[in-house]
């Protein structure tokens, strides 16, 4: 009787072991999906920043516009009806919607230097676009990409750190 119990126990352990292997195998296939998501978000950030806005002056591309919104938020670019900060918000919203309207995003821009002081008291410490709750949410899957925007303004080079957080999960 004791031998029988041991045998059944052994079989149960074996079945659990096989079940675990199956779970691990199914998990391994999601690694490729993660690679895709990382590439997607990285491409999204770089492509959006490079896109021409249709405005001139300091707002030619989205990265120019974001730099303008960060360094001189109230400046109105040539051909634009709105100041840089407002225009940057609208432009990002438009482009993100064109790429994927079901996507949630949070875009932040801050100085790469820790000693950043807003220019002439007009600049900002940090720019935020999109859904700020995305940064704090821990339970939903999200992807992050970041890059540096280089901007020459009045002979001085400024380095801005742009970070994009994206989630494809729908909001509760």
């Amino acid at each position, binding site marked *: 009787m004791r031998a029988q119990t041991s045998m059944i126990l052994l079989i149960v352990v074996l079945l659990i072991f*096989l079940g675990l292997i*199956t779970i691990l*195998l199914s998990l391994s296939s999601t690694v490729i999906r993660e690679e895709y998501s990382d590439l997607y978000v990285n*491409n999204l950030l*770089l492509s959006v920043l490079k*896109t021409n806005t249709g405005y001139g002056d300091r707002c030619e591309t989205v990265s120019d516009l974001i730099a303008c919104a960060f360094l001189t938020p109230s400046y109105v670019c040539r051909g634009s009806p709105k100041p840089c900060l407002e225009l940057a918000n609208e432009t990002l919203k438009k*482009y993100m919607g064109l790429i994927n309207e079901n996507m949630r995003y949070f875009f932040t821009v801050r100085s790469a230097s820790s000693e950043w002081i807003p220019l002439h008291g007009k600049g900002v410490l940090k720019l935020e676009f999109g859904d700020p709750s995305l940064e704090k949410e821990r339970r939903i899957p999200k992807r992050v990409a970041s890059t540096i925007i280089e901007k020459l303004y009045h002979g001085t080079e400024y380095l801005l750190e742009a970070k994009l957080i994206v989630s494809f999960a729908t909001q509760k």
Partner: protein
Amino acid sequence: MKLQAGIMEYIFMTLFVIFVIALLVLFLGWWNIMHIGTEHARSMDDKALFLAKYLMVSPFFVKEKFVFDDSLLTGMKRLESSGKNVCRELDEILGSNWYFEVKIADGEEENECTQFVYPDCNYWSFCKPKSLEEERIAKYVYTFPVNVYRHVTQKHDLALLTVGVYE
């Protein structure tokens, strides 16, 4: 009576062991099929991802990394319309059974680019299955945001690259 009970117990035990062995054989068979299926899906996935990565840097189509060149894309379409089998030539480099398309993200309907409508167009497609039947089996499809450089306006437009591999 005790002997009969012992024999019965022995028979039950043997049947149980046979049942477990059969279960194990079934599991291993299923496992093997699953593994082959997963390997196949993974290789198709790899192929679609590889194609997307290759196309985004290929000098045949891009001006710089992730920036497609509208004149190169339209030039390819022109070659296609002049009777050259561009797909077959690309197949020699990249393997068969795949397609890709680039669509400007302007929120407007697809207007395919040819030498006759260029530059007033927003869509290029290559090696796309012609029939709906074929399209249905294009299971491994990836989409990436990219840029398209428009030579006429000298501007970068936001676009979507779609790469599909069909069985």
